[in-house]
């Protein structure tokens, strides 16, 4: 198998993780027209909650079941008592408050768990690698891809087939319209924000066995999420998937050529998309 093909597959794997990190931001961004600068911190806290549960009980599966709902609750509280007062404020205050929230979470994590990163062991069931010819891939990453794919399908079903999904999709087009339909958009916002936080927490928990839990992983994840969301199309579910995969593949393929160049290219692409095609690759017009 050629190296480029191997890197393509690896890139798709990275891309699935990027999608996980970004999809929650995209949904919040699209529905509420609200940029959540604390999204990276939610991801961080998700990873640490997962670490804490593993450290206490030894069970990664329990952690994966507990940590993301805890994040959803955190998100719900943050929306209900903090952000909901900002919907009519200029966006700089929304950014300021979410930046503050991100700082509080990051420093709070260091206060509780220390400044050093923490290792989250790969669950025993998923240790080791699978070998396809010359391509070696960790079982755990394969699991993440499979899990994310399943989750993508479930999310897609939820968005396409349920009443909430229909409201959410309509909300991405126009919140006024949803309000006219007699739906309590504030409850919808609370729920959406909780969903976004849930997904960020899940992403943190899932990546913890790959890159550990580190107090400074928030801003990097946020940057990736911005790029993915913008390139894929703000509020577009399939766009976040396409954007995540695209960025993953580009980074992976560029790693053998010019890795710093990959970073420059990614942000050039982000700027170009906003300028030339603001609805993103797959966003609705």
């Amino acid at each position, binding site marked *: 198998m050629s190296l480029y093909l*191997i*890197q393509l597959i690896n890139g798709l794997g990275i891309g699935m993780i990027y999608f996980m990190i970004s999809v929650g931001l995209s949904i919040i961004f699209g529905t509420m027209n609200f940029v959540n600068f604390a999204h990276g911190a939610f991801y961080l806290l998700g990873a640490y909650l997962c670490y804490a549960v593993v450290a206490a009980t030894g069970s990664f599966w329990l952690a994966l079941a507990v940590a993301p709902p805890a994040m959803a609750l955190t998100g719900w509280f943050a929306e209900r008592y903090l952000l909901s007062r900002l919907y009519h404020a200029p966006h700089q205050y929304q950014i300021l408050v979410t930046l503050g929230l991100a700082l509080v979470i990051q420093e709070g994590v260091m206060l509780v768990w220390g400044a050093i990163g923490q*290792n989250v*062991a790969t669950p025993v069931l998923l240790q080791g*690698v699978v070998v396809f010819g010359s391509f070696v891939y960790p079982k*755990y990453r394969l699991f993440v891809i499979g899990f994310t794919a399943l989750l993508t399908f479930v999310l897609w079903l939820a968005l396409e087939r349920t009443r909430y999904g229909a409201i959410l999709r309509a909300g991405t087009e126009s919140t006024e319209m949803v309000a006219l339909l007699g739906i309590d958009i504030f409850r919808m916002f609370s729920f959406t924000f909780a969903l976004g936080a849930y997904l960020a927490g899940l992403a943190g928990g899932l990546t913890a066995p790959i890159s550990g839990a580190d107090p400074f992983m928030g801003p990097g994840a946020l940057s990736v999420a911005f790029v993915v969301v913008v390139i894929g199309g703000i509020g577009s579910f399939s766009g976040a998937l396409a954007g995540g995969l695209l960025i993953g593949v580009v980074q992976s393929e560029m*790693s053998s050529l010019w890795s710093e160049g990959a*970073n420059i290219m990614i942000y050039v692409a982000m700027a170009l998309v906003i300028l030339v095609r603001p609805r993103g690759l797959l966003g609705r017009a």
Partner: protein
Amino acid sequence: MTLSRRSFVKTAIGGAALAATGPAILRPAFAADVTKIRSLYALSGTFAEAGKTAELGARIAAPQFAKEYGIKVDYKAVDSEGNPGRAVAKILTEIQQNQVKYFVGGVLSSSALAMSEQVHKANGVFITAAGADEITGQNCNRSTFRWSVPTYGASRETVLPLIEKYPNAKRWYTITPKYVFGEALLQNSIDVFKEKGVEHVGNSYHSLSETEFSSYLTNASAAKPDVLLLLNFGSQSTNTLRQAANFGMKQKMKILMVWAEGLEQYEEIGADIMDGVYVGCQYDVSIKSPGNKKIIETFKAKGAPVPSYSSVSGYVSTDLILRGIKAAGSSDPAAVIKALEGLKYEGPTGQEEIRAFDHQCVKNYYLLKGKPKAQMKNKYDLVEIISSGKSFVPQNQSLCKMA
């Protein structure tokens, strides 16, 4: 076990960090015979763990050696915030506000280089354990001394013994962060490859903000190396190693991390992944030397955690300043610099000596290997020493031209 590592550090910092931030006009007029020492480590920011551990070492050393050498010392910790710009601004504040002449600190290359210049401009003394070779190379100056072994020695004292240990390991692959420190480690390693006739089958550069290493590891796997040589640092090397283990590379090849941060990093990586991995380090608690024995006892007496490279670097740097003052019999920086040049002393790694021409400390660098979990005596007993030695660029090849 006494206090946990964290709670000790917390009380230590909280108790003593009474910031001297009174107005400039109300500057406390300290008695002239009190020597002011400031440590500048990253207590917040990305390298906070290494920073606060190093600061802990300095905090233990200052009163101990003050007493031992009969010098009055005023020690305070200053947070460099892991930000070179902030570090320099704070050094300037200390120099102007308190006329401080003696500084220890600097974990990151960029911070250490910038601090070195400021202290030099103020005709002070700066002792660091940072990785940047420029400190005792092209950017060397009269004021700055470096305890840590440069990349030259780090590469030679880890790569060479491993080649000798595994003569059949002919194919080496490197992963390098793209900045001066990484490039220096890479160049020095390549020189050893050439000397020993092993093949350098490839290198991957990554940026300093990278956290996802699977694509570099994929490149490395494809090159089918016998040894994977990690030339990155801190959380990046932790992540590379962790992800390499996930990709099953530990079973297929030897992995050597040339510049490890020491105990805290081994703990972060965890015993499972550390098992069988080779690392290079400036210090290890298992060193058998009179100096190290004393350090272990001192740390124990103070209720501090097991000494690590970070805490010992802060400890030794502070010791060196006070040792210089004692030897000079004066707290005039010029005299102290003179006294430190050529100083031989019993350090944690055995006999250590400061070269006069470039202010580089000549000391051992260690090749260590992660222990299997079954052989660990306690949770800090993660590595064993394989070999050690001193390798330094001789004066005629040094880039240091001190005025």
